[in-house]
């Protein structure tokens, strides 16, 4: 046995990669953490301000609102995306004509850049939708603009989630339905008690991924609303970028990013814990 030599090879592979990862992920993260204790603009000189940025974060209504908006978006978005993509996946996995073409076409939104998609939808919300519904533009209404953002995010994200669900559905063996049919299971019950438990792991992946992506939403905000109207659609990432570099609040927004990082990790871990425990129960 060449046990020692094997391990050496493994370490020789692992260590350079860890170094690379540290250098371009952890190290800048630590630098960001350091900046969060300064009033740096990103260039030029700066002063140390201790925990002031963190104290300010909790008293800043704009930051508070951006968290509210982002969570609202992430919650509704996750539900909408998962419900629709599950329905779509079931449809695309049934015995339909043009199956592979339809799958291919429904995946297109995912290959397009979010910036371009945002611009096109801008037109849609500004001119076409108001005309059809005889109302004013959703993007100009602070009560509705966030829904428009949900729509655009969902339009792009559904494609990927649908494909993931389809792959889940393909792991469900046919004979389980045959067995189920004998028990008289049909329609909703068949889905609820036979299909869904089997694709639970895919449900977990989709929930965690769509939640995380929605929490980090940036491109769609940039191209669709720029945070408006009345600052009602400023996502956390948008605020960090916009005020951090462009706005000269780099130190303060670094503190915001640190908290944001902690929040995202916490949510994702909790989500995985909860969903995994459900998986085991089923």
């Amino acid at each position, binding site marked *: 046995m060449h046990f020692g030599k094997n391990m050496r090879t493994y370490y020789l592979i692992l*260590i350079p990669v860890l170094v690379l990862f*540290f250098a371009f992920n952890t190290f800048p993260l630590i630098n960001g953490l350091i900046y969060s204790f300064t*009033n740096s603009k990103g260039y030029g*000189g700066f002063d140390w301000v201790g925990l002031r940025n963190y104290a300010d974060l909790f008293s800043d209504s704009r930051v508070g609102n951006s968290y509210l908006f982002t969570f609202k978006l992430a919650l509704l978005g996750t539900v909408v995306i998962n419900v629709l993509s599950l329905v779509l996946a079931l449809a695309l996995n049934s015995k339909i004509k043009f199956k592979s073409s339809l799958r291919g076409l429904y995946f297109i939104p995912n290959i397009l850049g979010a910036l371009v998609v945002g611009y096109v939808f801008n037109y849609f919300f500004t001119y076409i939708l108001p005309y059809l519904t005889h109302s004013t533009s959703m993007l100009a209404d602070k009560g509705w603009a966030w829904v428009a953002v949900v729509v655009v995010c969902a339009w792009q994200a559904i494609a990927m989630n649908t494909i993931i669900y389809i792959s889940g559905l393909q792991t469900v063996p046919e004979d389980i339905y045959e067995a189920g049919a004998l028990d008289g299971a049909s329609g909703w019950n068949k889905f609820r008690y036979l299909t869904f438990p089997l694709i639970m792991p895919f449900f977990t992946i989709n929930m965690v991924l769509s939640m995380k992506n929605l929490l980090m939403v940036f491109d769609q905000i940039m191209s669709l609303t720029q945070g408006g*109207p009345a600052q009602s659609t400023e996502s956390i990432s948008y605020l960090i970028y916009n005020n951090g*570099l*462009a706005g000269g609040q780099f130190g303060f927004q670094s503190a915001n990013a640190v908290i944001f990082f902690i929040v995202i990790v916490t949510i994702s871990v909790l989500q995985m814990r909860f969903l995994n425990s459900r998986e085991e129960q089923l």
Partner: protein
Amino acid sequence: MLTRRQAIKALAAIAAVTPVLAGCSSGTKASTSSDGVTNIEIVSYKQEATKVFAQLEESFNAQQSDIHLTVSSPKEAMTVLKTRFVRGDYPDIIGFGGDVNYSDFVEAGILTDVSGYRGLSKVKKPYLDILETLEYVPTEGTFGVPWMANAAGVLYNRSMFQQYGWAIPGTWDEFIALLDKVKAAGVQPLYAGFKDTWTTLAPWNALAVELAPSDTCKLVNEGKTTFAAEYREVAEKLYQLIGYMEENPFAYGYNDACTAFAKGQSAMFAIGSYALPQILTVNPDMDIDSFVMPGSNDTSKLVLNSGVDLQFAVMQSCPNKDAAYKVLDFLLEQGNMQTYLDAQSSVPCVEGSFEISSMLDGMRSYIDAGKVADFQDHHYPSQMSVDAQIQTFLLDGDVDKFLAKFDSDWVRYNRDIIRKVQAYENSQK
């Protein structure tokens, strides 16, 4: 075999070697090439003027053999510039606006004092004063050469005005009367693109230059007044104008507004001269003129809202300042400025007989007489997003809430600057 402890040690060693935070700069570019030619690099934030600058660059390089000029106008130029500053990679000259970026760069000490540069004497005094007032704390010296200005007020459809016989208003009451008259004639008086929040600043500034002191922000920093006191009338009058705009102006962006105005869907558009090239792309034959937006009934207070749209600053790090000044000399030549004016419908910051676009006829006398006042928003820190706050106010109409928030946010976002200003004031006593 490597143990875990060894692995961790190795990691720690690598972490220690990696440089911490800002180190030495890497921007060591050769300013003089081997054949004795000095390279001068200009980065301009006017991406829309790329073509004009390419033309100017070419003619400069054709007549100069010992200096080679490169002008670039990158996309997202201010972001690009700031990231270059972050890494210590400075161009020789930067072309940017007279706004809060100027204040920041002066404070950061990265611009050269050009007060000794002879070309500065050609620049009109009001524009030099504008740069002066932009400094957070009075700083000895001048750090930019104002080149082009823009002007904001009201653009109007001249042929439509002639057709209906409408007259240009000189006071606020006349302005409102005109708007009513236009409305009564079944024409949309104003069109706005408030979905793009920055456009709210155009009428805001145009009213503010007349209704609030030009150094409002400075006075607030010194604790001598509040925005609630200075901006109430500005806010109320702007809100009144909403009634004369298209239904729900918050649904439409800047482009939509330019398009609508160009198509004759409104008689007027409260915006700056920078919108002219865009309007003309939609309707190249449109007959447009402009007037100064009157904010009060006191005609003696009428002043044009005009600021430094493009100025050139020589970076502190530029190794060959004489070469940089030669480039500035070239840019300040009348013919070269005219080339830019023709392309961009701008206003020159420099004395001389220039041909200014006929679309600015209504503002011409103010420009010539130097009766100009700077955009107030050039003093607002961008992270405070005053434009978005104005949009919020225009949507819900609560003046008191808006002004209270303006004052409290101002203190919050300018804390460090206010401290410096007050320390300066104390040191002067």
